[in-house]
């Protein structure tokens, strides 16, 4: 065993520093937990930041109702093991209350509807900081995001008047009604996250590994045909394929990739050799060049 801490990866040191700043600077922080690999990584980092104490803030999941059952089961078990509070708020409730309208048609997705449910939950619990797993390498508008990103009363991101972030000083001062979105793994790439999961032997939901699934192909991408959540034309043929998921968003906007990677080692080497980015498998980003920037201005994560 090494006797000094110099082997610890600089990205982990930075993320832990950020977690501690959140706990110290805010009164009511929350960690937004989706059950995906990025938020699972965040949970591990939070655990490390405060050990031997428990994570000093709750986890919150905005459930679209279209999540993979494997992720939901995983989420509940993790929260229990950690002994932290898990808050769940449902997009279905926002739909039932008439606050948002369900999309219809071929590309219907509840992904963008999450925003309303999230903003309502922030208001309900008076959260002043929401920790999220977004990374700058995911998407070109994200590459501009600060680590502490201030949002106004409407959750909106004003990309033109972002606070400068110098050295590693994080300014979390806000006015009443404002809140801050915090991104501790801003500087991580997809490969960094996967290698971290590998090295730390972190458990992740089974859908990240190759499995047999009923699927169909549309626009060159592979969609899950289980659970009837993705709208499918009669002529779109369902076939069983060996696939895995690279991101686990909402089922309606997350495509699978053909893969025989059944272990974390195989997943890591697959990502390393892959020539397509993970966002390439997100239909919501393909809608337009500026899709992400627009969603963010409206308060999306």
């Amino acid at each position, binding site marked *: 065993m090494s006797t*000094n801490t110099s082997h610890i990866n600089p990205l982990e040191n930075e993320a832990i520093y950020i977690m501690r700043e959140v706990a110290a600077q805010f009164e009511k922080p929350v960690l937004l937990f989706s059950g995906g690999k990025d938020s699972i990584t965040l949970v591990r980092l939070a655990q490390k930041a*405060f*050990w031997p*104490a428990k994570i000093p803030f709750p986890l919150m999941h905005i459930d679209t109702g279209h999540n993979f059952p494997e992720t939901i089961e995983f989420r509940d078990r993790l929260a229990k093991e950690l002994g932290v509070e898990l808050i769940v708020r449902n997009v279905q409730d926002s739909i039932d209350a008439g606050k948002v309208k369900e999309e219809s048609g071929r590309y219907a997705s509840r992904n963008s509807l999450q925003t309303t449910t999230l903003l309502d939950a922030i208001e309900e619990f008076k959260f002043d900081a929401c920790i999220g797993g977004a990374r700058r390498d995911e998407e070109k508008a994200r590459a501009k995001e600060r680590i502490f990103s201030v949002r106004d009363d409407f959750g909106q991101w004003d990309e033109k008047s972002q606070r*400068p972030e110098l050295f590693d*000083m994080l300014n979390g001062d806000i006015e009443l009604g404002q809140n801050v979105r915090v991104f501790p793994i801003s500087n991580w790439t997809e490969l960094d996250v996967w290698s971290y999961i590998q090295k730390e032997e972190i458990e992740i939901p089974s859908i990240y590994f190759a499995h047999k699934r009923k699927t169909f192909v549309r626009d060159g991408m592979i969609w899950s045909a289980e659970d009837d959540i993705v709208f499918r034309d009669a002529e779109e043929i369902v076939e069983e394929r060996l696939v895995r998921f690279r991101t686990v968003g909402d089922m309606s906007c997350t495509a699978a990739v053909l893969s025989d990677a059944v272990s974390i080692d195989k997943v890591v080497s697959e990502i*390393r050799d892959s020539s397509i980015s993970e966002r390439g498998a997100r239909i919501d980003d393909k809608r337009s060049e500026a899709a992400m920037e627009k969603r963010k201005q409206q308060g999306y994560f």
Partner: protein
Amino acid sequence: MPRANSQQLIKMEVLKIATAGSVDDGKSTLIGRILYDTKSLTSDKLEAIEKTSKQKGYDYLDFSLATDGLVAEREQGITIDVAHIYFSTAKKSYIIADTPGHVEYTRNMVTGASTSQAAIILIDARKGVIEQTNRHFFINNLLRVKEVIVAINKMDLVDYSEETYNAIKSDFSELMSKRDYENQNITFIPVSALKGDNVVNKTDVMPWYNGETILEHLERLDLAAVSNVGTPRFPVQYVIRPKTEDFHDFRGFAGKVYGGELNVGDTVVALPSQTKSKIKEIYAYDKKYQTASRRSSVTITLEDEINVSRGDMIVKEGDLPTIDKQFTATIAWMDSDQLKAGTKYVIQHGVNKVLAKVDKIHHKINPDYSGIEENVDGLGMNDIAKVTFKLNKPIFFDAFKNHRTNGSFIVIDTKNNNTVGAGFIQ
């Protein structure tokens, strides 16, 4: 260019680089070119660049599209806000801050440089050294960025002329003689970001140049040598008190180690109380270590029950920083509301926040090396000046030249909580 192999997947070395240079000198294009030539662009991102370049009617690939992510930036063809770009080679991982060249956004350039160990200053070979070059060199020197590459770009538009290159080099060398921080390493490289000459790959169009390409130079940099080392400073971020059965009396001080290392058994002093104790344990997560290395986030316990809270600082005995309620610093102002003498601000120094008053604006420093301006009563956006602050309680600081972390601070506007300036203590 080989990609990272599996042994090096966990990042050990990350070199942070910021670009600088005037509008349209080709910063974004250069970064896009580096990504392309190191095969760091995924096929979907490359397709998007090809598609948009075609739509715009270009007969070449516009690599700036790889980094200019905002709609306004793509429309205007300029960079407005800093973008962070990531790539790795077999040797190292890199984070490049693509900063805007427009004078109006100089503050974003300061931001980019504040976290970097290296800078690439671009010069358009057709224009040579201009006012923005002076300013960007000044800022990189002020922020004590150790390595500066001066990339003389668009060599394709000056027939790859050696004379042009030499003339620019000699103009720039004149600037170097005026600099304050003399230990800065400066390397000149003639490039064409658009064509890819001397960016990642060597070229045969400039046979008169035998030096390294930009990437070759970056690959050779020794990270330890380009990082600023000082004495150990441990600002306490958070006190960990689990109050569980197993850790009933545990009181851990969580923070990041700056400047140098701390060891179990070291005699330390807690500031501001100046109480002495010894380091009992060093934890990173649930593992104990003998040494907390520079830049690592750890939790420290002390032999004695002393009162330490957030904003306090743990330092080694006999190695104390300055403890004072006033200091003079060079500041870079970043807000459209003017800084005025007598105004109150919050100063954030590391994780410590104090109320401060501007005691005196001594003079403005023209960042183009044309001297200073005295008798100024306010500072506007992008101004650089020497200012004295008075604080409502003492802070524990070092001079910026001795300690990049413990010698810097940000200024926060008490009205709207915005970060409105950055300072470097003298």
